[in-house]
């Protein structure tokens, strides 16, 4: 990034993606907004200390994630997932399931994914960072990111299919008419 890039441009480039990341992590609009505001506030205060300006985007995502950990998830514990354990066939989600989804449903379903997988998975679907950059943001080895993505996708797929079948089963019968035999 150009070192003279104005703050406003940085906000315009990244605040929506950061908001989606914060929303998927916290599941709450207010918390996500606070996290994004706090992240940019910290950038305004400390961003000038970043020597490698090309890492501004990673810095923002890392900072938001740290703020989330320290503010909302003080007691969270991240188990390391072994690479071999994470390999599944991961069948694709049927296209009709995908067609029925909207953004809010995806965020709501992401919020149900285990927290350990939610961060990498959301960063992956936001598509702003490579898996290597996600490893830097989350400060875990690259292999761990790949295994968490694999496991997380599996969980997300199951949750989406489950929510769809649950919705189709929720058919409420009309009460019988009074006086009907």
């Amino acid at each position: 990034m150009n070192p003279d890039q104005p703050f406003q441009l940085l906000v315009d480039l990244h605040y929506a993606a950061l908001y989606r990341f914060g929303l998927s992590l916290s599941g709450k609009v207010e918390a996500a907004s606070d996290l994004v505001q706090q992240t940019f506030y910290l950038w305004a205060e400390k961003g000038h200390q970043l020597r490698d300006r090309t890492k501004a985007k990673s810095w923002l995502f890392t900072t938001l994630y740290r703020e989330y950990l320290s503010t909302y998830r003080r007691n969270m514990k991240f188990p390391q997932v072994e690479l071999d354990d994470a390999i599944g066939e991961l069948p694709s989600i049927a296209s009709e399931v995908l067609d029925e989804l909207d953004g809010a449903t995806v965020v709501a379903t992401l919020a149900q994914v285990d927290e350990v997988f939610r961060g990498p998975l959301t960063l992956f679907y936001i598509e702003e960072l490579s898996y290597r950059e996600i490893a830097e943001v989350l400060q875990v080895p690259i292999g761990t990111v790949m295994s968490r993505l694999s496991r997380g996708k599996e969980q997300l797929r199951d949750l989406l299919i489950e929510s769809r079948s649950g919705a189709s089963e929720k058919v409420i019968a009309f009460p019988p008419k009074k006086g009907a035999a």
Partner: protein
Amino acid sequence: MENKTRLLLSARRSGGQDDRDADIVEALAYARENPTLAEWARGQQRTDAALAAKLRQVQPPQGLRDTILAGAKVSRRRSGSWFERRAFGNFRMGEMLAAVAILLLIGVALVSQYAGYDKGHGWQAAAVAEVEKIEHGEATIDHQVADMPDIRAWLAAQAAPVPGETTPAALAKLGIYGCSKRRWQGQPMTIVCFKLGPGKDVYLIALSNVNIADAPPQGVPQYSTVDGYTTVSWSEGSLTMMITGKVTKAELAKLFQAQARLELRGVGQMPRLSWWGRRPACPLVALGQAGHLSHYDRRGACSTSLGTPLV
């Protein structure tokens, strides 16, 4: 090989942004020779592209952008040089001279108070440099957890110094978010990261005093500034300890005052476990201006920094 390829292809973004990554290139080449794998990868990409598109539909609340920009303006005003502020124009010459004189006096007082410590000892400068790298995002945190027993276990497994009994209990109330192991002059050095408040982090450093000729005294906090970081250092048995951060001396001192209050409340009551949970913390502190701490001596008894046994 196929398992690794599946993981790599699963981590490949659907927009093709990763297609120049060497490992992804290799995985794609492998998949081209395996039709089943290639079909699976195409299915993954379709699903990923659809989910990414759905996620992009989510828009931030109206007004968030303006709030961010307004917040940053406030931040900049606050962090900007006071010379730049309009208030400067309202000073008259006499008032300015008085202000300069007061600042000089404060400066002289600070220099005399911190004589010998201002530039930082070698180990302090090295520790602060490591902390600076973490703060600037130039170094990663080795073990990112928010759980103290986990951090202790990890440090022990890495043969890194595990902070002990004189570590201020007030630290336990702060948000913890990870730890790292570094080296200084061949000795392992521990860095534990805490959140003191919004945008304010403090770091607990622990390293062996084997190579430190001028280690701080046992249990007596020594305050100094190193490269813009406020530090407080003390010794704990064979370990040299330091807490540092871009905070004020008062904020660091508070951690020790909280410790002192805790210790005094504990006198005559059941032994209180130290926050690291290794053994009961020493029950009494000799309170002085510097906030003396009690510690375990080599015989395993509690004593003050002056060597006075407490138990």
